[in-house]
């Protein structure tokens, strides 16, 4: 049995307060083991992004526990969460969020810069990450000079260049056509299987979810269905 990477215990999240208060998560519990490739699905507004933000240490739960490799994340302060993101997490955003007018190489180097790596190592690792996503030869192009699929691959390279324990992707193919989406999914599958990176991905499309080994379905702030229990025999 693989080690448990993350576990949520009765996590709730309430936005706003008083009359305007809205409970986006109503008590969510699940575990994810190292090496899993999990798809998160569910209707719009069901709390998928909310749970991703909490898992990504960008946000804190209103109540409940979040353990990352046994550590209570809900007790960490802002800087400690930033360091956890820096050292253990990788993000791929729907909108890519690459730095404009900055080359692919510099974009991928950014997380290494915050880790304080020397220039030569930064270059080497960033180049290797770009090679891994199939962008050798595009290092010195700025996002404006790259296609959507290429931009998303740069974003993935930036997310995995630090060899994170967990890769979080919120609708990574939301802006791409089906062909580009398939490329990205193959890339994520490869990273998961060959490099052992745990992947958690939000998607609306069953085609994309089919690449994952497990699907979590959110309904109205709760987990409606988890294939980990259904599919196991």
């Amino acid at each position, binding site marked *: 049995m693989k080690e448990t990477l993350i576990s949520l215990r009765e996590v709730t999240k309430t936005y706003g307060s008083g009359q305007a208060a809205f409970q986006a998560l109503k008590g969510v519990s699940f575990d994810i083991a190292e090496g899993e490739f999990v798809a998160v699905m569910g209707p719009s507004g069901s709390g998928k992004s909310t749970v991703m*933000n909490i898992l*990504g240490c*960008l*946000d804190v739960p209103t109540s409940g526990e979040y353990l990352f490799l046994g550590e209570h994340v809900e007790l960490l302060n*802002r*800087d400690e969460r*930033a*360091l*956890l*993101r*820096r*050292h253990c*997490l990788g*993000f791929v*955003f729907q*909108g890519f*969020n*690459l*730095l*404009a*007018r*900055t080359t692919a190489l*510099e974009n991928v180097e*950014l*997380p290494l*810069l*915050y*880790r*304080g790596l020397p220039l030569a190592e930064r270059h080497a690792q960033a180049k290797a990450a770009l090679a891994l996503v199939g962008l050798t030869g595009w290092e010195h192009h700025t996002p404006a000079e790259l296609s959507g699929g290429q931009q998303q691959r740069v974003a993935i390279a*930036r997310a995995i260049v630090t060899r994170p324990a967990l890769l979080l992707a919120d609708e990574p193919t939301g802006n791409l056509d089906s062909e580009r989406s398939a490329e990205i999914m193959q890339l994520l599958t490869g990273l998961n299987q060959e490099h052992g990176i745990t992947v958690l991905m939000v998607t609306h499309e069953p085609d994309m979810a089919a690449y994952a080994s497990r699907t979590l379905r959110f309904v109205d702030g709760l987990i409606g269905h988890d294939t980990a229990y259904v599919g196991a025999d």
Partner: protein
Amino acid sequence: MLWNALLLALREIRRNLMRASLTVLGIIIGVAAVITMVTLGNGATALITAQVASLGSNLVIVRPGQRMSPGQPAGWAPAFKEEDMQAILEAVHAVREVAGIAQRGSTVAWMTESTFTPIVGSTPSYLEVGNWKIAEGRFFNDSEQRAGRALCVLGDTVKKALFSGSSPIGEKIRTRGVSCEVIGVLAPKGQSAMGQDQDDIVLMPLKAYQRRIAGRRSRQDVGTLLLSVRDGLSTERVVRDVSALMRERRGIAPNENDNFSVFDTRQISDALSSTTRVLTALLGAVAAVSLLVGGIGIMNIMLVSVTERTREIGTRLAIGALEREVLLQFLVEAVALSAFGGLVGIALALVASFGLTSAMGLPFVLDFQIMLLAFAVSAGIGVLFGFVPARRAARLDPIEALRHE
């Protein structure tokens, strides 16, 4: 960490070079203005000091009435007599020579030319005490002075006005019905510290002046006494001794104020340069306001930049940048901008103040302290006005920032 921040900041500035240059324009102008003003002021001070020195060093001036500088009205006070000169020379050992002068403005004429100029009656010692040089001919001597002969020595300006080119030696000029032989011409001295043309002058023996030029009532009078102090001896001491002596000679009771004044050239120079220093400080302060405006310009652009780059900041925070790293990045960016502006401003100030001082005929006195100060202030402005935008960037909520359009 600082090195990284600097790297990021420089990258950011390079990405937006046009905006960066416009932003620092305010700082450039401010720094350049401050340094230029101070350099001009220092030049003026240096010029005045030099001009006062041209009065002659180790000079003590004794005047009737209580006044220090020209322009202040003097209450009536008895004039000095020639005996006073002798008395000072005998009683105050530190005094090497005493020159007595008396003057009055008058028209002088030669052939068809004429000019209005101060006629100064003086003793021969005035040549040395007044720091004059003879350019042509000679000065009158003691026996000529005692005999009261009608001899004249012309200042350069008067010579040019009356004799345009030709030599005046031996010619007779007329003033107040007196015909006076020109025996010499003074070497030019230029403007005085008060802006008077020192070369607009005609010198003649004091006796001749008293008899023929001065009015009936001031036949015996000497207007001003100029004392030259022996080298290496304190002029302050002389001022004190001469004051005491003159109080005694003029019969001033201990509870009465002086009815004359004694001062040395250093006092004049101090009074004048303190005036220019005040002016310099004033101009510098006005220029400093533009530095402040430049700082506000930097804050404005940095605030715009933070809003514009909200998504970028969100990305950095999501990747794992600490609050203080983002703060430092923006702060370093602001400081790099303003410090660069400071450097360009200093370069501009050097060019401008060199051009202006040479156009205004002032000496070019470089003050490295003010340059260092201006640079430090401009960098400080970067910290001061960069802090608010930087803190705003650092405190952003990463989720909000990422969602920002």
